[in-house]
């Protein structure tokens, strides 16, 4: 179960980022309680940073919510991707699972080669990063001043690196490689032209050419239902 150890590594990086969020939000005048409630209830890092930034600059609720929710929009696609893995659970459990549907949990769960390990990886990673994110937020909000600059520690490079390791299993199939290449180029090409958050959402459309590719005569049937079919 390497996902347990790997989750804690991701969790540690999330915790450091949580500290810097706590410092930022507290510094923006939110106070410790509001800062911690944000992390407990929103639990979407990029959205929280964006919301606090806009609100601190004097933005209205509308101006705060729009950019923040756009950065969270990719979670819809993650929810769809997680549906085969946790979507058969009882409704109450799915409603709890939903709060944990973010980049890290989706990446860790879908990276598991053993389909039976995917739900466990989702829940373990979700619990780990939820714990670290909120503990970090509390520490940052209480300390008030940064314990260290996350950028000086290279934390912003830790997340894409983790996703590189976790996306590797997806790139073993030809359709996966097409989806990845088209998705990356699409997102990067859109960045200068659309609001932040949208490029990654639109990249989901890369599954269409990838799917067409998987229907080509030579590679088609080998990918049908494998390795994604649930037990």
């Amino acid at each position: 179960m390497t996902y347990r150890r790997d989750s804690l590594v991701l969790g540690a990086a999330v915790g450091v980022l949580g500290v810097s969020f706590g410092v930022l939000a507290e510094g923006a005048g939110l106070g410790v309680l509001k800062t911690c409630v944000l992390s407990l209830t929103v639990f979407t890092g990029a959205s929280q940073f964006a919301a606090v930034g806009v609100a601190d600059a004097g933005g209205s609720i509308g101006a705060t919510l729009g950019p923040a929710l756009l950065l969270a929009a990719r979670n819809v696609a993650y929810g769809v991707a997680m549906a085969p893995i946790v979507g058969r659970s009882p409704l109450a459990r799915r409603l709890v699972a939903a709060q944990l549907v973010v980049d890290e949990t989706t990446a860790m769960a879908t990276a598991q080669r053993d389909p039976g390990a995917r739900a466990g990886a989702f829940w373990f990673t979700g619990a780990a990063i939820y714990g670290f994110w909120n503990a970090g937020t509390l520490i940052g909000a209480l300390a008030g001043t940064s314990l260290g600059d996350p950028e000086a520690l290279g934390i912003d490079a830790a997340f894409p690196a983790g996703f590189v390791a976790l996306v590797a299993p997806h790139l073993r199939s030809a359709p996966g490689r097409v989806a990845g290449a088209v998705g990356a180029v699409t997102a990067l090409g859109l960045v200068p032209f659309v609001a932040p958050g949208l490029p990654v959402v639109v990249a989901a459309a890369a599954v269409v050419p990838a799917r067409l590719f998987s229907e080509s005569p030579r590679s088609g049937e080998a990918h049908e239902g494998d390795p994604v079919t649930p037990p």
Partner: protein
Amino acid sequence: MTWLAIAALAGGAYLLKVLGLVSLGPRSLMGRPLVVVALLPAALLPALIVVQTFTVERSLRLDARAVGLAVACVAAWRKAPFALVVIAAAASTAATRALAA
């Protein structure tokens, strides 16, 4: 931020997360649609990686993060343990920044 704004943000963020998870019924989780669903992380994660590495807001930017990404790619390709991939990327980005400063 008011409590109302916090509640609206929390509600909106949760709605987005729950939408995908409950909108697909068990029937749509079989056969061909499942193949498309399984390709979603393959499309989204590389997009997220390049956006997190090569952009600042709405501009493209090549900086120390690219060093970390290159190190991560080599480490992952050599099948290094997950922790090593992450730590090597962060350390190389941090070192590049320290040297450039």
